[in-house]
């Protein structure tokens, strides 16, 4: 039974006032407005496989030139934000060649731990395939008009996200010395590629690219997340208000506009267990065009660091911080500014705390996702993120 408070039944006036107070990118505004307008609607209910098959069939009939066959639809585990189904598709392409591929249908639930626009994800994934392994994206239903919920369809990639282990989810992957040695050099190379990739020739129509040399994009990003805090928070937390004010007053200009993944870390890529080859970088839903320091700061957050066999702290479980920065600068050809990194230490953990402290309990209250229990587990990470926010603010307030 959903738990009701005022924010579960938002008025049209309140939604409009939030839009005015927090102007942000067009597709972000569209997504957040849609979320709020649908909030008082029904809870999420598991999608029967037959219903998924029927919608997929109608959807693909409009897009494939000839006969096709869908089989083996199954829900996928992992991930907290999107409901995913794998399925086999046999079809003939426009040249008449027989194709047989496993695909993934990635759908937004009624509300998600991160409410995002699938066209942004689709465009970024398509662009970044030029420089790193990313699942091929085939089709997108941005507003869910045909598939029931906003969704995209991508190729299924083989691989695992972490060595097998028991226990509840944590964002630490526990790669250990063997996989660390295999994965770290690939991972940092792709991290650097992300920053230096020239996106200007790509289709980025779902984004509002910020100007280099200006902080307008940073302010828009603060507006995005402060709006989410206002929409979702279940109680006040003065430190979050303080952090938002500080971020607004100290927003630095972006020197070089990059795709920023916002969740680039272990757990969000697949690798083959026998060779350690990374087969796919995943979870592009939060992507925007912004400052590479944001990705670095989020990756450096205490949530993802691990200790090696000698007790040395490794960022994201891979390298000590200074070594990571040095190698990243070498590979990307872009400098890492300590002052900007310190700014994004606050920004990234503040944003992470919004997801954990506001959105997670909010969507559980409304029973809005297929992963309520997993989303609820993320709330337990909030104190660590808040601790990092406070630590990064100390001496700067």
């Amino acid at each position: 039974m959903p738990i009701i408070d005022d924010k579960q039944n938002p008025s049209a006036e309140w939604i409009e006032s939030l839009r005015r107070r927090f102007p942000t990118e067009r597709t972000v505004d569209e997504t957040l407005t849609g979320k709020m307008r649908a909030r008082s609607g029904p809870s999420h209910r598991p999608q029967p496989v037959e219903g998924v098959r029927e919608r997929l069939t109608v959807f693909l009939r409009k897009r494939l030139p000839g006969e096709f066959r869908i089989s083996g639809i199954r829900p996928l585990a992992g991930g907290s934000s999107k409901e995913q189904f794998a399925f086999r598709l046999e079809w003939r392409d426009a040249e008449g060649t027989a194709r047989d591929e496993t695909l993934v249908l990635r759908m937004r639930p009624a509300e998600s731990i991160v409410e995002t626009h699938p066209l942004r994800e689709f465009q970024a994934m398509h662009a970044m395939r030029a420089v790193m392994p990313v699942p091929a994206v085939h089709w997108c239903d941005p507003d869910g008009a045909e598939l029931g919920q906003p969704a995209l369809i991508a190729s299924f990639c083989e691989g695992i996200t972490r060595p097998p282990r028991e226990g509840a989810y944590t964002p630490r992957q526990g790669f250990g010395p063997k996989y660390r040695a295999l994965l770290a050099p690939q991972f940092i190379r792709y991290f650097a590629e992300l920053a230096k990739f020239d996106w200007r020739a790509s289709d980025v129509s779902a984004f509002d690219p910020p100007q280099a040399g200006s902080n307008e994009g940073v302010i828009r990003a603060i507006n995005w997340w402060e709006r989410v805090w206002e929409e979702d928070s279940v109680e006040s937390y003065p430190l979050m208000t303080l952090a938002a004010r500080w971020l607004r007053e100290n927003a630095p200009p972006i020197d070089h506009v990059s795709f920023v993944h916002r969740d680039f870390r272990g757990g969000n890529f697949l690798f083959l267990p026998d060779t350690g080859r990374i087969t796919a970088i995943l979870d592009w839903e939060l992507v925007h065009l912004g400052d590479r320091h944001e990705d670095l700061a989020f990756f450096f957050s205490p949530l993802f660091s691990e200790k090696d066999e000698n007790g040395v702290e490794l960022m994201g479980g891979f390298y000590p911080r200074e070594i990571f920065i040095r190698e990243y600068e070498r590979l990307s050809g872009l400098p890492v500014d300590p002052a900007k990194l310190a700014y994004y230490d606050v920004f990234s953990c503040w944003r992470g705390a919004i997801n954990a402290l506001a959105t997670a309990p909010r969507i559980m209250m409304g029973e809005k996702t297929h992963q309520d229990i997993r989303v609820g587990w993320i709330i337990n990470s909030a104190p660590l993120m808040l601790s990092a926010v406070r630590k990064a603010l100390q001496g700067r307030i």
Partner: protein
Amino acid sequence: MVPDFRLRIQSMLRAMQEVVIPAIPAGERLALDQASIVVGNLKLMAEQQDKLYRYELVELREYAALVTELIDAAGGGASTEAARESLRNSAGVVTMPIPTQPELTGLTKAMKHAADTLLRAAYEDGSPEFRRAAAQLVMKQSASQITRERSWFRAAGFELEPESLPPLDELLA
């Protein structure tokens, strides 16, 4: 109360670990993943269940102190003065009779909102002195709140050095 929370949680853990999880086929990864998180949540609840009321009391006391200090420090324009006046009554909560758990939760929530309202007013039109003082007071209070929250959620496994956190009993004394 029999069975108390501890016993009920213990029985739920046994059922999950000894019956439910072993019965899930290895290929059902979504079900296995969620079952593992259920076990994690139950372990966390087993550790927290007899401390919740004390936890809320400590938090209420702390926020009442923060609001009192913010009111004392407040100065500036109309928004700040209006917020200060409306919050004067909030400080009286420390002398109220012992509330029920839902009342206590509600009071703490109201106190958090009160502190946040005054902080926002400080940034809107508070005097520079008040703005600085408000920021410092919030930083100071958040230190103990965050330490307490980290210790409260320690069993969830997100901490890199959980042993470095003070015991919950010490923080709730």
